[in-house]
């Protein structure tokens, strides 16, 4: 509450208090009020109710202020993080461009040139992917009704065909199918695709990969579960961060940006991503999206 509102709220009380003090000093007359007990109780009830209402309003206001402050802090941390990635991108792209140009113009017989070229290409890809991730946080996004069931079925077919794997899909049909979510169908496909592709990548051909669609408390949940290698407990909390890779994932190629991309897309749709995993048993990634709004 700002200072002006506090003054306005306290002013009547202050006026009455001043009047009371003045009357106590200059006027010693006594007022005797006679009223039925019921009326007195009624007045007492009204006063208690008014105090309670004021206290509740005040508490709700304080809570709102605290939550706004928290949101602001989270927002400014996200903005600071984004500025850092922008600076990193900005500072790396010119040196990498210069190295790539130098490699291109060098004599092909130069020792280690192929290795320099390969590593620079790798860095260039990483910088490019970081930028794409940054762009995705602010890029204009379509907002149309999207059927999550269609997305899940398409992803299962695409990833299954590409890797020769059987991906089980379970979608509800009763009492009704999954409701629509609002968002960008291309981005939502990308998010689910990345999670399913990860499940296939970190599991063996004999392992199970399942996608389940559930409607729960006004939200659509898409769970992607596998019986693959799982994520070490120490790494589970960080796998959704940029460049984070589980310590047991080093034998597979990857940039550590796939799940960060998923989180960015789902964030932009007002949803959440959670990861549950046991090393050696498997992983379940849950994408939760609000129904009908995004």
């Amino acid at each position, binding site marked *: 509450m700002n200072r002006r509102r506090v003054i306005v709220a306290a002013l009547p009380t202050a006026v009455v208090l001043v009047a009371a003090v003045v009357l106590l000093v200059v006027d010693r007359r006594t007022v005797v009020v006679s009223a039925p007990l019921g009326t007195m109780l009624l007045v007492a009830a009204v006063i208690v109710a008014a105090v309670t209402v004021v206290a509740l309003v005040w508490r709700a206001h304080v809570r709102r202020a605290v939550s706004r402050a928290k949101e602001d802090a989270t927002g400014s941390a996200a903005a600071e993080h984004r500025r850092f990635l*922008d600076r990193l*991108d*900005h500072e*790396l*792209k*010119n*040196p*990498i*461009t*210069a190295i*790539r*140009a*130098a490699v*291109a*113009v060098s004599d092909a017989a130069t020792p280690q040139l192929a290795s320099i070229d390969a590593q*620079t*290409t790798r*860095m*260039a890809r990483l*910088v*490019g*992917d970081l*930028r*794409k991730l*940054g*762009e*995705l946080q*602010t*890029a*204009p996004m*379509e907002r149309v009704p999207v059927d999550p069931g269609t997305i899940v079925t*398409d992803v299962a077919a*695409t990833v299954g065909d*590409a890797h020769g794997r059987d991906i089980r899909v379970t979608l509800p049909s009763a009492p009704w199918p999954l409701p629509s979510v609002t968002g960008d169908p*291309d981005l939502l*496909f*990308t998010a689910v*695709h*990345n999670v399913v*592709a990860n499940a296939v990548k970190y599991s063996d051909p004999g392992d199970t990969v399942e996608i389940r669609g559930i409607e729960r408390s006004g939200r659509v949940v898409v769970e992607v579960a596998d019986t693959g290698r799982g994520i070490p407990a120490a790494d589970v909390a960080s796998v959704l961060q940029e460049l984070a890779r589980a310590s047991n994932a080093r034998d597979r190629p990857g940039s550590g940006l796939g799940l960060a*991309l998923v989180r960015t897309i789902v964030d932009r749709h007002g949803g959440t991503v959670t990861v549950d995993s046991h090393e050696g048993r498997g992983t379940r990634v849950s994408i939760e999206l609000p129904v009908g709004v995004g």
Partner: protein
Amino acid sequence: MSSEAAPRLLLVDDEQSITDSLAPFLSRSGFDVAVAADGAEALRVIASRHPDIVVSDVVMPMVDGRELLRRLRRSGDATPVILLTHVGESGERSAALDEGADDYLNKPFDPQELVSRARAVLRRVAAGAGGLVSSELVEAEGLRLDRPARRVWRDGVEVSLTPKAFQLLEFLMTRPGEVHARERLLSVVWGFDFAAHTRAVDNRIAELRSVLRDDASAPTYIETVSGVGYRFTRSVRRA
């Protein structure tokens, strides 16, 4: 290629570490290369040397790449320009294309890719389609596209397209005859090109074909180039 026939290319970048290597590479790739360190110097070189193509960084002191492009187009100079985009905003790229850049490449890029793009732009110009990228109204066999108004007509009847389908048609129509890879189209229209999601391009092409009544097996406008991407097949003119 003889030196007389070599296309004149002006490379504009304030990073000497880049121009020091990129200029000799472009020369070796068959271009007659001049270098400018910023947009102001580039304008002077363009006036005196009349390059066939300009490759310019975006973020530079004095006159930056986009301002250079704007000044060129405002003065009616249609010299093709490839921008080396710097700013990590997808809006920056589409704005550059809207302002009349012929193509763009994100830094850091593969120098060989720059050579391919420069040659593609020069071929487009040689085929008489160079000015299309800075035209507001373009037409091709019953198809009319108004870029600033974001409107499309087929045989005089206005059709309705989603924003991405419009962008895709605009990009293809202003670069007719060239094969555009799906990944490239993804990057241009969506601002991202994460592999494996090129089906988004196929979906929008399907939307375009349906709205424009274009038969995929006997296309009037958009041809599928198997395993690569798409090509706008008709000749396009300024309206």
